[in-house]
């Protein structure tokens, strides 16, 4: 697996920017996501009202998180399920392994789960000799390519069709070289053929959860392929891996959130499958798992409660922020170096990993504000990125050159007379030197700027100088 880490964001970004396939893939997906979202909300006049409601539901739940988590746990237990509390990713790994080993599992089916990524569940399973099979098509593709997801809802969005075809031919060695595999339906059919068998072999199915419902003790997943249903219904044991902020009070609230989720994510009114699971199979049920386990992961989230980052816990993982982020759309998800890319990752990753490790991410934003504009639960992402920059500045983690540069500029800005003396002199010189071409193609103090663009020369005297000469 090509490992990239958040502290190497800049290097990762340069590598990604040079990737022509990535550029092609992102250009193709961008319009699909942004256009789809716009169309679906244009068709729903009460969308803005729903967004406010969605925000309020999440705020209320997070403010009473302990209450709703305990209520949820009680309901899961009374429906015959098990609840496991995991403080860290490592704890979650151990709980998963423990359950798998107790039932003697050799093969595990996985529905798509970002918490699974956060906990490196596949790696832990493989290390214990248990075969983990991703059943979501996108996840399956990156699993055979030995990659990480580059997007929270479209894990293989960084790949072109040709790259996927190539990977299939490498892994599915039984394929007739003559067989046409250049369209998504044929790729899907091929993946389905391989996966179908695996569904019946696995002893354990692991899924994530989009929501956990306190009122009923249910977990909800949404998928478009139906793979989640097969993953959780066919094996003997179903494990739900979810982080604590996924809980909502009741089914009514969950349905409000579902209405904004699919529209914001893919532009669908509703995902193709919305599956609600409550406990293990009952006597009268025709199918379903014999055991139902929920692992509730904290992994740093409670430390965000009561801070300026609490609003981040509203996130419902729709991906709209990254679909609309010009930085994400330039460098792709792998540049961010960890599980969560784009604007939501730029706020969440420093919260979970520490700002010393993930400090680049909240800095790599122009604060254009498009992420906040499209967020279905109104998370003020730019504001929180700025809070991370403030934390860094306080802790002297901001690179020294920038720190000193900004402090020097502020020193001058706070002394208007000094500012005018310095600028009227220097700007006139700069304007005079640049007057022939009107711009500079290189300047010793502005290399970051002139590496890729010219610097327009100042017109001449500063405005304030000219104004003072007039009046």
């Amino acid at each position, binding site marked *: 697996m090509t490992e990239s880490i958040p502290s190497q964001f*800049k290097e990762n*970004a*340069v590598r990604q*920017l040079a990737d022509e396939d990535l550029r092609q893939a992102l250009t193709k997906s961008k319009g699909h996501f942004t256009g789809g979202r716009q169309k679906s909300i244009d068709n729903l006049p009460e969308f803005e009202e729903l967004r406010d409601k969605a925000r309020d539901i999440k705020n209320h739940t997070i403010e009473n998180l302990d209450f709703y988590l305990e209520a949820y746990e009680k309901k899961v237990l009374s429906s015959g399920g098990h609840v496991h509390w995991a403080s860290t990713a490592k704890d979650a790994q151990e709980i998963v392994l423990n359950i798998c080993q107790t039932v003697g599992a050799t093969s595990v089916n996985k529905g798509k789960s970002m918490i699974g990524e956060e906990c490196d569940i596949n790696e832990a399973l493989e290390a214990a000799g248990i075969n983990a099979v991703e059943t979501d098509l996108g996840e399956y593709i990156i699993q055979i390519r030995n990659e990480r997801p580059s997007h929270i809802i479209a894990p293989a969005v960084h790949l072109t069709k040709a790259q996927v075809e190539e990977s299939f031919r490498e892994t599915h060695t039984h394929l007739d070289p003559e067989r046409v595999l250049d369209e998504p339906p044929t790729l899907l059919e091929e993946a389905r053929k391989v996966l179908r068998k695996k569904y019946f072999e696995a002893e354990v199915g692991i899924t994530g959860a989009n929501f956990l419902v306190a009122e009923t003790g249910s977990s909800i997943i949404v998928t478009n392929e139906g793979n989640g249903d097969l993953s959780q219904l066919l094996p003997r044991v179903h494990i739900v891996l979810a982080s604590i902020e996924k809980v909502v009070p009741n089914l009514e609230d969950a349905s409000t959130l579902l209405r904004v989720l699919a529209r914001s994510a893919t532009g669908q009114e509703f995902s193709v499958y919305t599956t609600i699971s409550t406990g293990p199979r009952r006597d009268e049920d025709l199918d379903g798992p014999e055991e139902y386990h929920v692992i509730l992961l904290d992994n740093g989230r409670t430390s965000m409660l009561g801070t300026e980052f609490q609003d981040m816990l509203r996130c419902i993982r729709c991906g709209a922020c990254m679909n609309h982020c*010009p*930085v994400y759309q*330039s*460098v792709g998800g792998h540049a961010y170096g960890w599980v969560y890319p784009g604007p939501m990752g730029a706020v969440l990753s420093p919260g979970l990993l520490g700002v010393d490790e993930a400090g680049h991410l909240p*800095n*790599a*934003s*122009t*604060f*254009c*504000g*498009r992420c906040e504009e499209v967020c279905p639960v109104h998370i003020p992402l730019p504001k929180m990125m*700025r809070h991370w*920059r*403030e*934390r*860094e*500045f*306080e802790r002297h983690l*901001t690179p020294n050159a*920038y*720190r000193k540069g*900004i*402090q020097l*500029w*502020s020193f*001058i*800005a*706070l002394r*208007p007379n000094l*500012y005018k003396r310095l*600028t009227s002199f220097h*700007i006139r010189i700069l304007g005079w030197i640049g*007057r*022939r*071409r*009107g*711009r500079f*193609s290189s300047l010793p103090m502005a290399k*970051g*700027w002139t*590496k*890729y*663009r*010219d*610097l*327009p*020369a*100042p*017109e*001449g*005297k*500063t*405005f*304030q100088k000219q*104004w003072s000469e007039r009046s």
Partner: protein
Amino acid sequence: MKNNRVALFITCLVDLFRPTVGFASIKLLEEAGCEVVVPRQQTCCGQPAYNTGDRADTISIAKQVIVEFEDYDYIIVPSGSCAGMISKHYPALFSQDSNWLDRANRLSKKTYELISFLTDIMGVDSVDSEFQGTVTYHDACSGLRELSIHDQPRRLLSSIDGLHLRELDDANVCCGFGGTFCVKYADISNRMVETKAEQVIATGADTLLAGDLGCLLNMAGKLQRDGVELNVRHVAEVLAGMADKPAIGVPSKD
């Protein structure tokens, strides 16, 4: 008669790089019936410090701006991002200090970006200028998303005889400037401005307009580096009939 004593917050970039925008602003404001004052003790709104996480310096700069500008009827800024800084972000700096919070809130309520002030407050719906050519307009992010500036510049531009506006694809997508972002993450910024430049060229317009000088310097610099002959100007220059001056990054003839 309304009180129309307006203070022009010139912004450091206009002060240093493009004084023409300042004179265009004054002309437009005076034509709309305002008495324009340029307070002398002004420098920068504090965005560079604010966006670098240097809250202490930002607060000091904000206090300096509040003291210098709070006695006027309106504070007018020819930049969406600097106007947004004063009107949207200054109050957030003083949540713990009620005296300064009051003063910041009062300043916030009377601070406007130039073009939206002309249309929304002064009721200007046309300008008496001439311009021959096809322009395209980029919606700078802060003006668009913090201050809802979208229709106002288009409305005024459409009142100019001889001017054709051709809309830009993804006009609401960032050009990659982002203040210090464009030098801190130069490679990413370049990809963003490269994309923007391609879309600008695709309009076939001969002039690119926007309301924020940072974005304009970025886009002009990229187009000129690539040898594209296209004039880049602040929208106020065209509205004020001052497009006879050399465009951004173009040498003067004399």
